[in-house]
């Protein structure tokens, strides 16, 4: 998460989206370290993971995003968000 300037706003979420999207577009997977990451706002999650999953779908991203060095609370936030996103897509 050193590649983003924060975890609170849409603008910061777009920074992460651009970084992730450039790798996925090229067919790569990625490791995201959540070391030193603070809690995520919904705006940040919408503009980063939300945009990525909207673009490629859950199937398209399967096995491509590995999370490392995380505090359980941070990982839970992302997981809860993605679960919610799945229900909204339906």
């Amino acid at each position, binding site marked *: 998460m050193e590649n983003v*300037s*924060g*975890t*609170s*706003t*849409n603008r*910061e*979420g*777009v920074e992460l989206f651009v970084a992730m999207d450039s790798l996925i577009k090229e067919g790569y997977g990625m*490791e995201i370290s959540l*070391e030193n990451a*603070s*809690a995520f*706002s*919904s*705006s*940040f*999650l*919408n*503009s980063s*993971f*939300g*945009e990525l999953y909207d673009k490629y779908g859950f199937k398209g*991203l*399967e*096995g*491509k*995003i*590995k*999370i*490392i*060095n*995380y*505090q*359980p*609370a941070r*990982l839970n*936030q*992302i*997981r809860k*968000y*993605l679960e*919610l*996103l799945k229900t*909204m897509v339906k």
Partner: protein
Amino acid sequence: MSNPEYICDQISEGNSSSKTTYLKLWKVDACQIYPYTIYAVRFYGNNSLSGQNLDALNIGLAEDFNNIVDHSQSAVSGYVITQYYPQKSQLITSICDFGVGISGKINAYKMSVGEPPVADMGALKLAMEVGYSTKTVPHNKGLGLPNVISTIKDLNSSIKIISNGAMYMFENEGVGLIKAVEPNFGGTLIVIKINTNNLPPEGPLSGNELYL
């Protein structure tokens, strides 16, 4: 950071003595969202509430700041003040703006899509529904206010939202209540009282790896 829109005053540490329990009044703007939330979390995390997970404070501040910047159309943006009361085990933060209020925003959206307007209480209910968005920002999915409320409920803490002529209240383990208020507030005020006895400990980093 060359865009003047994002140039902001340096956030000063002020009096960071461990005896200080309050953060002075701040004027909210787009560039302060992340710096202020991190500053507030570190201020309490390094002093009075060391070792406790302060995600609830972080989320409450960031979501409400985003709402002010994205939706309120408040000419003076907004203001926030935060204080810790050790004897009551409460961390209280109050955030307000003097913009169009939740009903103002929702009814402008409703008008734009040809729907009839709703009263202040109805608008507040809609804003608390997961997935209801006025689409002010393309990425928005209507999760901000529900995220704050569920975070506070999870900690058996309290939240009061007053927006124009409506108020929502949730206290401790009770039931959320919406009612009309007078006079009209003319904007939005959110008061969050975190019961610090219910804050979980800050957990260690996991050495595991996993795929989303």
